[in-house]
């Protein structure tokens, strides 16, 4: 009886995602953009919940809304975003790019509807267990590799930003 609820939530989240995304692309104030990006991520987490993947949603909030947004905000702080006329925020190729993207996006988005829907009820809740099992058995190796990746990124980030030390 709450059948209408799910589509409604979906519609709201969709609006949020598209609005947030479009704002990131179109706005000029960098901090606003960053926050709207976080908002988009948040809506995305909602989508995940709607799809019954609460664990993923949790990660989404933790990593995207938390870590990544914060990182980007740091980036924004460290760099001076100059004030300049609107035109200079956008590349000269903007019209062309827009045409290409629209030409590409419309058919692809329409094609998206052609995926068959199994129509099965969404198993609710508790996907943490299988996910964890999967991660640590079948995907143990990629998991380890991902850890190496994080280490590599860490080292890379450090080496790129650390102050020059004088050679002894």
């Amino acid at each position, binding site marked *: 009886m709450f059948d209408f609820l*799910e589509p409604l939530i*979906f519609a709201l989240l969709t609006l949020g995602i598209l609005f947030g995304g479009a704002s990131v*692309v179109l706005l000029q104030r960098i901090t606003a953009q960053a926050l709207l990006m976080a908002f988009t991520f948040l809506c995305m987490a909602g989508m995940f919940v709607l799809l019954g993947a609460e664990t993923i949603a949790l990660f989404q909030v933790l990593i995207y809304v938390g870590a990544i947004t914060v990182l980007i905000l740091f980036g924004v702080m460290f760099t001076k975003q100059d004030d300049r006329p609107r035109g200079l925020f956008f590349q000269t190729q903007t019209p062309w790019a827009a045409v290409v993207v629209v030409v590409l996006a419309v058919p692809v988005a329409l094609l998206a509807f052609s995926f068959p829907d199994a129509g099965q009820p969404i198993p609710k809740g508790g996907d943490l267990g299988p996910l964890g099992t999967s991660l640590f058995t079948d995907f143990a190796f990629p998991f380890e590799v991902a850890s190496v990746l994080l280490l*590599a990124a860490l080292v890379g980030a450090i080496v*790129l930003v650390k102050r020059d030390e004088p050679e002894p």
Partner: protein
Amino acid sequence: MTVPLGAFIAVSAALFFIGSAGVLVRRSAVVILMCVELMLNAGNLALVAFSRRLGALDQRGSVFVVFVFVIAAAEVAVGLAIVLAAYRNRPTVDVDEAHQMKG
């Protein structure tokens, strides 16, 4: 009434192309980075949707998403480091100013 799978995918596609458009039209490296994140998120949405709704529950999509989180984090970290390193030598984040090399 459940929302059909196609709708989720369509949203993801829309977000993906919004992100693409951002990469194509913006000049600030930081904003481009944000847009890339949006694109990754679009991928995530599609993966999760497929994972949950493509017949029987399939964990692999979700697992993939977890890895994408890791990758996204790593990318952002490295990306910002690169932007900052460049910023030190030349205080701008406008990528169009970075065209000493061409041709």
